[in-house]
């Protein structure tokens, strides 16, 4: 049995799974249920100035019969009275002292308001603070949330205010609604933040109702841009996480990874790319807290298989493998191979290659089953056929190096080597 426990700047949790600041963490009832189910920690839904929410609040993107591939929300920060939130946070900390209790904050934009809020929250016994510089809707119009996170200078200033007051670890949550998360990340680190978390939701319009012609979610004939999350955003989150994990300034602090994490595999990937803890929201909003069982169990079994005794044995391990394009080895060459015993003759590899790639698959007509084979000379090793094939390991990519030595693009150009002739 591997050890799943994490120590994030002294914030300890029995496993790396925290619930992200969101509807599932906006009151004691939910949080206690989460802790009972086995969640390692929570980031309490953002506290700050008093707001009022609308109805409806969510919309989703379904894909080929799978519901909620992506979820969009227009809900604001907690709309419950601050004193109730604070009391419930304290009660949760008391009942589950071994779980991480981080509280998300978004004060009005003055030093005094931040200091006041931090003092109140620290009194609850919470273990850490997360600064919400990411909320993309509603709060931005008031100069908060993403409006802070999109301007590195403002972000740095606010972090500095916070650090003047905070006595518990501070995590700054970054918005993805920027060209690069690195400038705000650096500014926050320079401002003194103890850690970073990312990503918050991505601004989106999930779709337009083709009957009413009004986009979703629908609020009395109108809609607004919402924040997109769920499995659909995971690849974007992983990329942004990697840029933070690779930057010499931002990589100095621990990272809490967020964005479409639904399974232990997703979590392992976030951790391999630099996250010390991971935060989950959409997956529990779809399935409930019970998914924590397999999140832990699957990660545990994988760690055992890989020989990782603690999460620290693999956190960040994949970060160095993402390099610059011009450093890739041009002599590395693979070609597809179709295992005829496994092939079910669906033709998906053929039509993908024929219409959109390199015409490297040969079709031999048969009734009803055609036979498909690779034309190795035409195959550029793009992976597309393998990706669309519905049968595991039917199409494999076989290494056929163009040369023994490592050769990158810069060297290739310097030597004046020949480009493609067709």
């Amino acid at each position, binding site marked *: 049995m591997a050890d799943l426990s994490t120590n994030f700047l002294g914030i300890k949790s029995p496993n790396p799974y925290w619930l992200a600041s969101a509807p599932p963490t906006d009151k004691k009832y939910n949080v206690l249920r989460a802790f009972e189910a086995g969640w390692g920690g929570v980031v309490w839904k953002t506290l700050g100035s008093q707001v009022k929410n609308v109805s409806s609040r969510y919309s989703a993107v379904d894909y*080929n*019969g799978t519901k909620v591939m992506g979820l969009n929300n227009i809900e604001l920060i907690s709309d419950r009275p601050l004193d109730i939130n604070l009391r419930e946070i304290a009660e949760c900390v008391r009942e589950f002292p071994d779980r991480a209790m981080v509280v998300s904050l978004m004060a009005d934009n003055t030093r005094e308001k931040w200091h006041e809020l931090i003092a109140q929250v620290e009194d609850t016994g919470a273990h850490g603070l997360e600064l919400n510089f990411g909320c993309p809707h509603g709060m931005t119009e008031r100069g908060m949330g993403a409006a802070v996170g999109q301007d590195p200078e403002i972000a740095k200033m606010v972090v500095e205010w916070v650090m003047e007051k905070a006595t518990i670890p501070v995590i700054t949550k970054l918005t993805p609604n920027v060209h690069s998360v690195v400038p705000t990340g650096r500014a926050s680190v320079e401002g003194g933040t103890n850690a970073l978390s990312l990503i918050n939701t991505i601004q989106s319009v999930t779709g337009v109702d083709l009957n009413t012609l009004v986009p979703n979610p629908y609020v009395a004939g109108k809609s607004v841009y919402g924040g997109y999350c769920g499995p659909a955003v995971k690849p974007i989150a992983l990329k942004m996480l990697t840029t933070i994990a690779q930057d010499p300034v931002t990589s100095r602090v621990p990272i809490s990874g967020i964005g479409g994490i639904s399974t232990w595999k997703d979590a392992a990937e976030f951790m391999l790319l630099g996250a010390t803890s991971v935060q989950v929201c959409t997956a529990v909003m779809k399935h409930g807290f019970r998914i924590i069982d397999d999140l832990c169990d699957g990660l545990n079994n994988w760690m055992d298989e890989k020989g990782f005794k603690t999460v620290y044995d693999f956190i960040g391990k994949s970060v160095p493998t993402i390099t610059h394009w011009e450093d890739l080895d041009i002599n590395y060459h693979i070609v597809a191979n179709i295992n005829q015993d496994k092939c*079910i*003759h*669906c033709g*998906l590899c*053929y039509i993908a290659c024929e219409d959109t790639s390199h015409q490297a698959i040969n079709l031999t007509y048969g*009734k*009803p089953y055609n036979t498909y084979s690779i034309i190795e000379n035409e195959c550029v090793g793009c992976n597309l056929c393998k990706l669309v094939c519905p049968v595991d390991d039917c199409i494999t990519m076989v290494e056929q190096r163009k040369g023994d030595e490592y050769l990158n693009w810069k060297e290739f150009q310097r030597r004046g080597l020949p480009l493609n002739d067709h």
Partner: protein
Amino acid sequence: MAILNNRLTTEQYEQNFSDIHPPFETREAALVEANRCLFCYDAPCTKSCPTSINIPKFIKQITTDNLKGAAYTILDANIMGGGCSKVCPVEKLCEGACVYNLLDEPPIPIARLQRYSTEKAIAQKWPLFQRKPSVGKKVAVVGAGPAGLSCAHVLSREGVDVTIYEKESKGGGLMTYGIAAYKVTPQFCEDEVNFITSLGGITIKYDQELGRNLTLAELQAGYDAVYLGIGVGVARHLGIPGEDLEGVEDAIRFIYDIREKGYPAVPVGDKVAVIGLGMTAIDAATQAKRLGAKEVTIVYRRTQAEMPSTEVELNLAKLDGCNLIWLASPKEILGENGRVTQLICNVMELSVPDTSGRRTPVETGETITLDVDMVIKAAGQIPYEELVTNNQLTNWYGKLAINEHCETNIPGVFAGGDCVNGGKEVVDAVQAGKDGARAILKKMSERANE
């Protein structure tokens, strides 16, 4: 033992003859299956459909909520795609070829999805097809079965005025009269015919039978072309003693009566023997059981390896409790007071393969005797040999001979479907009708260009 009608209660009849292929109840249920479809390229299912319905395309259209498009995709290739979704032996056609079979996974339920896609279109007569303006040409079609209706629809879409002459009082041919009622209801058959004719340009004249109150010469004189889709006739004679006894029935007549007269009106024996093991034999045996026969025994002269029916169909009969006797060939039917009492069969064994590649059954010299009061003959159907010969139509034991342009030896007289192939699936007849229509259109345009 006795042959009786009205053996069951109304509720029992309803239960016994309810649809064995229930439709998807909801859109969600259909989507679960539609979304499983891999959307194969040059799909094996399409290649295994005699009418080449673009199956991956219509299933994709279901998933995008384009039900109108799905219905068009199906019906454009097969105007009886609704009926075919209920009666096709899909296990040996589209579904049998589904690539999921190669993964040992259940194939996509193509027939159910096809039914889902076409049911509303047919019931509500969606105007999916527009007829081109009349080109001033007239074609007579003989037989309002699948071949004739399919031919008429293609022709009418191209602006040809079609008159169909049908010997029965309803259209649909074997779909209406020759298939088990639990597969396709008379109401559906009527709706399907009405949907086809809702295109316009197609007139069906009922109770018009070639050779009885209609001659080929009249049709040739009155129309630019004639299409014969006359199907095949009664069940093949067994050619054994006792065939004239009371209680010996023709399977086609038996099935026809069930559909035409209603379940309680059709008499059935206590102990029934069904001769043959094609689709019609199964339809007769299962329906005899469902009408209340106490014991139904299917007698087949070869083994399961050679049977024309599919395994799915055979299982229907088994699940209905029908008995099977393999390697038994009828020798004589015995009777008392003119009524059937026993069927004597030769016990057979398989010898060398015949021209069809199936091993020929030969007599062993032994016999078995079955106590029965009803014998249903379902050992194939006979073409209308006399009718076609009298009309100087070249034929082979009654099966019409046509050239590669679907034309008979008489110029301007085309033919297709069961009357040419001797009896295949509905879907084969639909394709034959399409081919015939295209051949007629081609000939018309060639004539116009002369």
